[in-house]
């Protein structure tokens, strides 16, 4: 089933093709509703069979086909006149016009072989697009249908615009020849090129944890296919595989799924570098399918319809059935079925009746995938009188019954405990919750604050901040010219003056004032407390004496006089002493004291 080696050389080409396809789709999406697709009506054909390249432009009636490519062995064209379709829809009260232009360009194979039809240009609404590379196998005969089986189904069978659907390809071969099969290729010309629908992401067999195998697809890629249990048919037992592809219907009308083929058999490898050559290949085909895409009717559409479409069932559960009033309960709703589960809008419980006494704090999607959606609704019952979480309805349109239906989750009984100290609803505190608080009466406050923002605020605040910073910088610079005020020496000087101030305030007599001042001087000169009491300053006095020392001598004389001749003088005031101290904190009293000690 592998045969991958020859693919390595083609992977780069495949990557470019995928990018080109994505680019084509991307550029088409960029045009809004405009979308261009191109594909063969079949990927494998018998010699002489009528084949078509089907080119579709959705969203414009204005388009043309560029020069068609020339491929040896194939006669391509000429392009016929296009089929144009215009349809007017009324959806959600809005008129929508759907237009589509389609060409069926004939392709006539004249020689058996494998062909690659190179890209050609398509003009649509003034924009140029390029088709992807298309591959075609032409065989003289296609025998072996009885040895294989292939079936293509669409589920669900009836859909509307906006609803996802799945194309399910089931295929296999006779179990009796299974050990001879080393090659198989699915030819699905509609893969990624389905007009009227866009591909949506689905889960692979491996992602779903199923038994899987790899299969060639369209002779240029590998895909994972699910391995099913063997099936019976036509008296044979078939080795069976399945491949699923999800689409979203975008426009109403018919979606044609062209003929699909399975080629299987044995290939011989001639050499390591030589490509494998086919031999004994068998072919089985699945007939084309037409899927009718309808629209959700406006008539009878309920107000609560939130674009949910399909056949869906719901299951509800809660994380806790017993909570305190005001506590959160997580209601988990799981929708499953054939619907557009990924796309519908969640019901807004804030507008739902029957939620009295329950606060709704929002909903979050936990799982959102094909066929399954799980959403968690955050609810908080407010009182112990709430005993039930109500059923949550979802209005949906079922295309199978062509009617609007409402599915509801089951009601869930809960038990809510009243908060301690709050009592029951009959209590006044709880009763206050159930009624509004009274109106404001009386005079308005005499001073009313402003109601509107100040338009000049940025200028005022910015200007004030700038001014403060400028003043600070200037002041700081000025102050620091005399030294750093935060330095330890400066801090000690300030502390000494503060201590002198406190001592002078506490002093009751001239003697105590003299001792307080003496203590200040001793602290500054690093001597004992009484060192400056009665000290003779003559050795440091003279013509060259410092002003501070001169004033110190005068102050000490005055203090002495006040102590010993109290009737003659009151002595210097506290302010005068502080002035002298302020002058002295900058003087070098240590040096003065040393000189005095040497003189003694």
């Amino acid at each position: 089933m592998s045969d991958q080696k020859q693919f390595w050389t083609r992977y780069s080409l495949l990557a470019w093709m995928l990018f080109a396809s994505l680019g084509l789709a991307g550029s088409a999406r960029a045009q809004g509703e405009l979308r261009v697709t191109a594909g063969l009506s079949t990927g494998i054909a018998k010699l002489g069979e009528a084949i078509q390249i089907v080119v579709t432009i959705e969203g414009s009636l204005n388009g043309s086909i560029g020069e068609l490519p020339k491929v040896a062995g194939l006669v391509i064209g000429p392009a016929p006149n296009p089929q144009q379709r215009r349809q007017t829809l009324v959806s959600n009260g809005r008129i929508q016009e759907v237009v589509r232009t389609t060409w069926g360009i004939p392709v006539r194979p004249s020689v058996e072989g494998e062909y690659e039809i190179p890209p050609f240009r398509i003009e649509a609404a003034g924009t140029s697009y390029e088709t992807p590379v298309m591959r075609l196998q032409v065989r003289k005969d296609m025998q072996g249908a009885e040895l294989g089986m292939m079936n293509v189904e669409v589920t669900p069978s009836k859909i509307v615009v906006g609803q996802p659907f799945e194309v399910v390809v089931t295929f296999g071969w006779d179990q009796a020849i299974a050990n001879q099969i080393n090659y198989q290729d699915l030819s699905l010309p509609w893969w990624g090129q389905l007009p009227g629908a866009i591909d949506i992401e689905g889960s692979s067999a491996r992602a779903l944890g199923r038994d899987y195998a790899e299969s060639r697809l369209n002779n240029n890629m590998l895909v994972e296919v699910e391995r099913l249990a063997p099936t019976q048919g036509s008296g044979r037992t078939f080795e069976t595989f399945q491949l699923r592809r999800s689409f979203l219907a975008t426009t109403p009308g018919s979606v044609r799924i062209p003929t699909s083929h399975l080629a299987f058999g044995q290939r011989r490898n001639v050499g390591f570098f030589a490509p494998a050559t086919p031999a004994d290949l068998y072919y089985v085909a699945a007939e084309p399918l037409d899927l009718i895409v309808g629209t959700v009717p406006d008539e009878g559409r309920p107000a609560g319809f939130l674009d949910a479409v399909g056949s869906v069932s719901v299951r509800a559960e809660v994380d806790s059935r017993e909570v305190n009033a005001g506590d959160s309960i997580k209601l988990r709703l799981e929708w499953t079925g054939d619907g557009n589960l990924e796309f519908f809008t969640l019901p807004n419980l804030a507008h739902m009746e029957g939620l009295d006494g329950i606060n709704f704090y929002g909903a979050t999607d936990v799982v959102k995938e094909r066929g399954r959606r799980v959403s968690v609704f955050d609810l908080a019952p407010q009182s112990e009188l709430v005993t039930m979480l109500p059923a949550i309805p979802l209005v949906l349109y079922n295309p199978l019954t062509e009617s609007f239906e409402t599915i509801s989750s089951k009601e869930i009984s809960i038990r809510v405990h009243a908060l301690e100290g709050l009592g029951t609803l009959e209590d006044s505190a709880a009763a206050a919750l159930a009624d509004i608080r009274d109106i404001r009466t009386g005079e308005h406050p005499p001073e009313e604050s402003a109601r509107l923002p100040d338009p000049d605020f940025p200028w005022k605040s910015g200007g004030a901040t700038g001014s403060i910073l400028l003043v600070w910088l200037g002041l700081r610079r000025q102050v620091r010219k005399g030294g750093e005020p935060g330095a330890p020496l400066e801090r000690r000087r300030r502390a000494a003056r503060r201590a002198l101030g406190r001592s002078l305030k506490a002093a009751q007599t001239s003697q105590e004032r003299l001792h307080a001042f003496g203590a200040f001087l001793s602290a500054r000169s690093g001597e004992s407390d009484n060192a400056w009491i009665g000290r003779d300053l003559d050795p440091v006095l003279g013509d060259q004496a410092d002003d501070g020392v001169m004033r110190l001598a005068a102050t000490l004389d005055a203090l002495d006089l006040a102590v010993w001749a109290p009737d003659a003088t009151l002595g210097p005031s506290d302010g005068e002493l502080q002035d002298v101290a302020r002058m002295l904190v900058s003087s070098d009293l240590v040096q003065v004291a040393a000189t005095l000690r040497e003189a003694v």
Partner: protein
Amino acid sequence: MKAVLVCKGLSFAVLVGLFLVTPALGQSAAESAYRSGDYASAKAHWEVELLDLEGAEARGAVLYNLGNSAFRDGLFLEAVARYTAAIDHSPRSADYWANLELARSRAGLEAADRGDLAATAERLYTLLRVPELETLTFAILALLAASLLWEALRGSRTSRALATLLFLSLIGVAGLRTWRVETIPFNRVMVTFDGGASLRSEPSLELPVILHLDPGAIVERTDTLLGWMRVNSKGTSGWLEAPQVLELD
């Protein structure tokens, strides 16, 4: 003579009484109408009173009373709009918040304060009104000036730490004020029509609806026309029928 004096005294007392009573007459009329269940009259009185009020607290109180009138009339969406406007003026009033939550509950709207982290953060940063943030900014500026003066004169580590802290606070408060002014539009309206409001590209009922606004949705008003209001909802501009919305003052 005595009689003349008594008469003069009585006249003076009556005049003083009238002077004192007159300012409260408007309120009394509204209040008495409200108490007697005539909510339409109460609403009319308060709406007239609202025209002359400039102060935030006074407007908040009158808007709150208007909310109570609407609530008693069963107009829960209008009550929600009034309470929301009142809270804009007095964000720290427990009464306003209590009535808003009750009105939102009755109107089928989600709680204004959901109690989660985002709602708590929103309550915190709207705790002060923009003018209050401006006042706080200048108060911090004054403290910053004092701390910088201290730093310049004394240069201690404490003064520098305090100045840094105040400067960061200044940036935070001024930044919050600017952010609120820039992000919360002043001219807001709330959809108070039970069925929501339909946004159209032009002021004409003939034109298709480009956006449906749910009841309770708050959008920015950008223009008005007779019977119509141009609004901006998360980048989508269009026209609403004016009766479907109520201005949040």
